[in-house]
């Protein structure tokens, strides 16, 4: 694929672009669409709440509206909206030409779009998910769905697809921010918006992995018949016993809220970053207490992972635990106090201009103050006991979250001239703000007054009617104000005044130093802060100082890399200690011999991300049809199809097959495609100077994978304790012995060793060595799978003893946890073997001689897979 993009007016451009600015625009526009979608649902809810009782809808329809409103706003609107700005401006602000992995960036977007479309489809499949955006168990499993609610499964799958988009994004942003900064731009020097995105992405990496685990398990309950979140009280006189998992409700609560709490900061931080930027620009002052502000953000990011049980104060957890979480919750409010004050003090001695972006940012600060104060109420456990499940909580979180969104709309007006090159109409902007701010407060403040109304309930005491009616009026006013915004931004695109490079006074970050809109490659040279200010170096001046080929050397980094870096630094024009001289060329699988002399030629187009995401959409649409634990029957259906027999659920089977083929084929296509995404010759790379781009990306991905497995193992431990640790053995057949596990352990450990040998052979340029070692790895891996297959087949087909009908996925909670956890691991093995086979084929074709890096990256993945098994084996076979 060549780098030449069609013009912006052509649809084809938008389908194949990988440029971060285009993708940023795609995110912004798509997020606004979901804002309208989620907003319309909210308006329907407000109409229902005009009078007590079922004004418009019955219970099921109302619950769907409530649920979809929450899911759409939290997942499909607000974060993607923030990431639209992040995509567009983070590379500009840090001095990069693009993100580290442009095609993955496009993939993130298409996965996001298709996941949203999949969610939209769910409305038409009986009923979409109707258990609240919090999806509590056991209401979230098919046992408790209304009949024919296929859409409920589709909705869960849509969210699963969305999380893959986030994971890809996190890997991309983290790698980029640590490897693509301009010379002498230290992490602490980057603009506050980019810093806030950096922390957001760190939180995303770990929090979303926990959600991914919860969703994979939930999907497995829906499609494979496992019983993690299923619990049915049996009528045997004891209310506490039943079938399924006794700890189901609590397990979901822990997994979900461990994700859910960091999530609200993931949502808010981009807004906070925008507020910092807009305040600085429109007050003409640098932020007060910048380093404290940064420290406060870092503290919040860390603390966000230790407050989650404040969502669970009424679940019967013990007093000590409640006390700890009360303390941590209050603790997390303190850094926010500091940041609020920092913003306020920034105005002092400023030259405040009340332009639309500042109105929204100032408005956001005020709304956040109100929301934050009411949050302290919720942190006092005794008060929380009564606020639980009421509109106090609803009002609180709308003030803070939509307060954040308010700042983002400010960002939209702030950056609109930079993105489009045109200025919006200021009068209309102010009109939007007026309607917005009045509407917002009219909508949400009465909810504090009518706080006794239970959440997700449309019946309330008559005395509160006036407040609900005010809220409904406010909601419509808020919505109407957006019409002004859409009209303004649309019209200004065609008829607005030309905005120059710096439409605002006192801007300082790098995006304002280039044209509006910026050129494709962002900068008229290599950005550098070596002189203390932003300057652009001529790439040719810098080129001559570097020797080419490959990135920084292997994991043992050390001496070799340092020697070459020093040598190169001495020949360069800048101060030796400051220049990190690394030329890395990452071409995603294509031999490093290509594009050697065209270090500044970057590709910008590829159709594969779109195709991969589309395939994912089709596959999951097909999967949904197997709600009720029937996905395990798919292989036999497939065989029946090939034999020409009749096949149940044929449309779903076809969708799955076509989708999976499309995705697999597109992944191969993407790997085969030649795509250059060169890094800049000089960059600030602390602390990853010696970790080349692909390796850093792999490490980040593996960190997320570790949390995923951690959540699975944690779920197993929690569940086993909840059901009785020793009693667990009654749920496992005697035939389940440790020998197969032991054999598998040896097979995997040996295969890890073999990969190391392959890497060494590649470094020594021994093709035979690499081929032999990879072959051994592959064979041992196949051995692992075959051994496991035999073990499972044996357990499925038991004829005697306590499990005479077989011990299967859906038999009991012990079998569920065993098969799903080791099954997830086996899926990782399968993926690893596919990659191994690929490496084998390429080696046969002459690749990797002298360049062992791709094998090293595979090795890192494979070692993780083995290490995970070392935990699973004792947990599932010995204890």
């Amino acid at each position, binding site marked *: 694929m060549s780098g030449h993009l069609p013009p912006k007016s052509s649809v084809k451009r938008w389908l194949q672009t990988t440029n971060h600015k285009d993708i940023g625009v795609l995110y912004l526009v798509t997020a606004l669409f979901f804002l309208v979608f989620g907003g319309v649902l909210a308006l329907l809810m407000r109409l229902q709440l005009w009078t007590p009782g079922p004004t418009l809808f019955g219970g099921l329809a109302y619950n769907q509206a409530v649920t979809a409103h929450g899911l759409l706003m939290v997942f499909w609107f607000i974060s993607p909206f923030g990431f639209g700005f992040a995509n567009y401006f983070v590379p500009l602000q840090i001095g990069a030409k693009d993100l580290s992995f442009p095609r993955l960036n496009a993939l993130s977007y298409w996965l996001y779009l298709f996941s949203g479309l999949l969610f939209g489809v769910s409305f038409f499949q009986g009923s979409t998910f109707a258990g609240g955006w919090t999806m509590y168990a056991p209401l979230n499993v098919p046992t408790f769905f209304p009949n024919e609610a296929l859409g409920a499964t589709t909705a869960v799958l849509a969210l699963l697809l969305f999380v893959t988009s986030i994971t890809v994004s996190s890997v991309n942003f983290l790698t980029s921010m640590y490897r693509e900064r301009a010379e002498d731009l230290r992490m602490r020097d980057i603009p506050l918006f980019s810093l806030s995105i950096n922390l957001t992405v760190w939180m995303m990496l770990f929090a979303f992995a926990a959600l991914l685990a919860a969703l994979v398990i939930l999907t497995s309950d829906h499609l494979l018949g496992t019983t993690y979140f299923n619990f049915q009280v049996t009528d045997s006189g004891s209310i*506490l016993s039943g079938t399924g998992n006794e700890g189901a409700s609590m397990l979901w609560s822990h997994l979900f809220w461990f994700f859910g709490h960091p999530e609200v900061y993931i949502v808010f931080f981009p807004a906070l970053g925008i507020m910092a930027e807009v305040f600085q620009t429109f007050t*003409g002052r640098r932020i007060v207490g910048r380093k404290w502000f940064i420290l406060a953000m870092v503290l919040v990011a860390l603390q966000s992972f230790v407050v989650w049980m404040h969502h669970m104060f009424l679940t*019967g957890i013990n007093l000590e635990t409640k006390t700890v979480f009360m303390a941590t919750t209050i603790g997390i409010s303190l850094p926010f106090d500091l940041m609020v004050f920092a913003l306020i003090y920034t105005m002092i001695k400023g030259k405040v201009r009340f332009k639309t972006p500042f109105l929204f940012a100032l408005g956001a600060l005020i709304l956040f103050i109100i929301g934050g104060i009411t949050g302290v109420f919720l942190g006092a456990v005794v008060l929380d006991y009564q606020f639980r499940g009421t509109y106090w909580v609803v009002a609180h979180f709308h003030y803070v979250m939509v307060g954040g969104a308010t700042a983002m709309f400010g960002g939209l007006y702030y950056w609109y001239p930079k993105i489009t090159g045109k200025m919006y109409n200021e009068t209309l902007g102010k009109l939007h703000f007026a309607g917005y701010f009045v509407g917002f407060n009219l909508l949400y403040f009465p909810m504090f007054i009518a706080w006794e109304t239970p959440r997700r309930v449309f019946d309330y005491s008559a005395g509160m009617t006036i407040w609900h009616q005010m809220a409904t009026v406010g909601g419509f006013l808020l919505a109407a104000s957006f019409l002004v915004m859409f009209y303004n931004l649309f019209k200004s695109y065609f008829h607005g005044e030309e905005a120059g490079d710096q439409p605002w006074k006192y801007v300082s970050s790098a995006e304002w130093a280039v044209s509006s809109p910026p050129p494709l490659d962002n900068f008229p040279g290599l950005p550098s802060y070596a002189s203390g200010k932003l300057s652009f170096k001529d790439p040719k001046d810098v080129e001559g100082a570097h020797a080419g080929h490959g990135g920084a050397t292997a994991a043992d980094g050390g001496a070799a890399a340092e020697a070459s870096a020093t040598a190169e630094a001495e020949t360069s024009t800048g101060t030796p200690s400051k220049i990190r001289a690394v030329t890395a060329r990452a071409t995603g699988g294509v031999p490093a011999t290509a594009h050697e002399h065209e270090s500044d030629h970057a590709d910008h187009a590829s159709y594969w991300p779109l195709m991969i995401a589309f395939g994912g959409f089709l596959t999951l649409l097909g999967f949904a049809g197997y709600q009720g634990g029937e996905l395990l029957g798919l292989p036999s259906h497939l065989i029946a199809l090939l034999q020409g027999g009749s096949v149940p659920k044929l449309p779903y089977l076809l969708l799955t097959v076509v989708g999976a083929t499309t995705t697999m084929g597109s992944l191969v296509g993407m790997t085969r495609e030649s795509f250059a995404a060169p890094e800049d010759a000089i960059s600030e790379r602390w602390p990853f100077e010696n970790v080349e781009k692909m390796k850093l990306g792999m490490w980040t991905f593996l960190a997320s994978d570790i949390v995923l497995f951690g959540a699975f193992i944690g779920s197993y431990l929690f569940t086993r304790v909840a059901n009785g640790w020793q009693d667990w053995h009654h749920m496992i057949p005697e035939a389940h012995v440790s020998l197969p596990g032991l054999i598998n352990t040896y097979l995997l450990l040996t295969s890890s060793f073999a990969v190391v040998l392959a890497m060494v052979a590649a470094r020594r340029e021994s093709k035979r060595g690499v081929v032999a070692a990879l072959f051994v790895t592959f064979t041992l891996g196949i051995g692992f799978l075959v051994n496991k297959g035999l073990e499972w087949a044996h357990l499925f087909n038991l004829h005697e003893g306590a499990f005479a009908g077989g011990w299967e996925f859906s038999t009991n909670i012990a079998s569920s946890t065993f098969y799903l956890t080791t099954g997830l691991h086996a899926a990782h093995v399968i993926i690893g073997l596919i990659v191994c086979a690929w490496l084998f084929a390429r080696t046969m074709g002459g690749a990797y001689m002298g360049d062992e890096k791709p094998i090293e990256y595979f090795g890192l993945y494979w070692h993780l897979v083995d290490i995970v098994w070392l935990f699973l084996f004792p947990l599932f076979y010995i204890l």
Partner: protein
Amino acid sequence: MGIPDVALAGAGGAIRNPAEVFGEIFWVFLGLGTAVGVVVIGYTLYNSYKYREGADHETKSDVDRPELGELPSGSGGGKKLALSFSISAIIVIGLIIWTYSTLLYIEDPPDTENAIEIQVEGQQFGWVFEYPNGEQSPTLHAPADRLVWLNVTSRDVFHNFGIPELRTKTDAIPGQMSRTWFLADEPGEHTAVCYELCGSGHSRMTAPVVIHDNESFQEWYASTSPSGNQSDGEAGMDGNETAAIGPTTTTGAVAAGDSP
């Protein structure tokens, strides 16, 4: 049989019921929160107006304005920030420490020997109350001036049981028991509500709550027919016995209290 007419030690005010506790704390928080909010927001708006561009101010030359392309830095001002931060931290932490003592009280109220225990089971979409004598009813009957413990669970999905006017609430989770208590000052009628989305009937999942004076409660209780769990004639709630139903629920209560 029947329930002796024991005046609750502390009836008339020595035991504060959850409603009083909540009321006190809530109004203090509301007052303080409103004051802080008004002050901070007022100060914010004041500053934004005072330092607006074009205002008559001597700030022209002594403040360094941001310039394009500069390395981001701050404006100092650390001292003022530290002061504001410390004041707000003291207020917030002070409030929480104050409420912590009430949390301890709510978790462990006095005079539980005189308390009545009632089992509450939520189900889609109503509540069932089970009394010490085994009687089951969709209405919660309780006497005024008597501490009432509720052992709450669910027959199907995750619900939440709360009586807003009595300020009592707890989750109703299938597979486990959780507890809450209330102490009604006077007879009256209230409504219990479900506070956790539980399915299509969530909005109508309510239960009537009837608080009797002591005599009429005795009458009602005497008129109920035990469903056979307890031995006839012995089932009663005299002042010295903690009434509880079967062993499973007591075990459950212990288990719920200990689970992390």
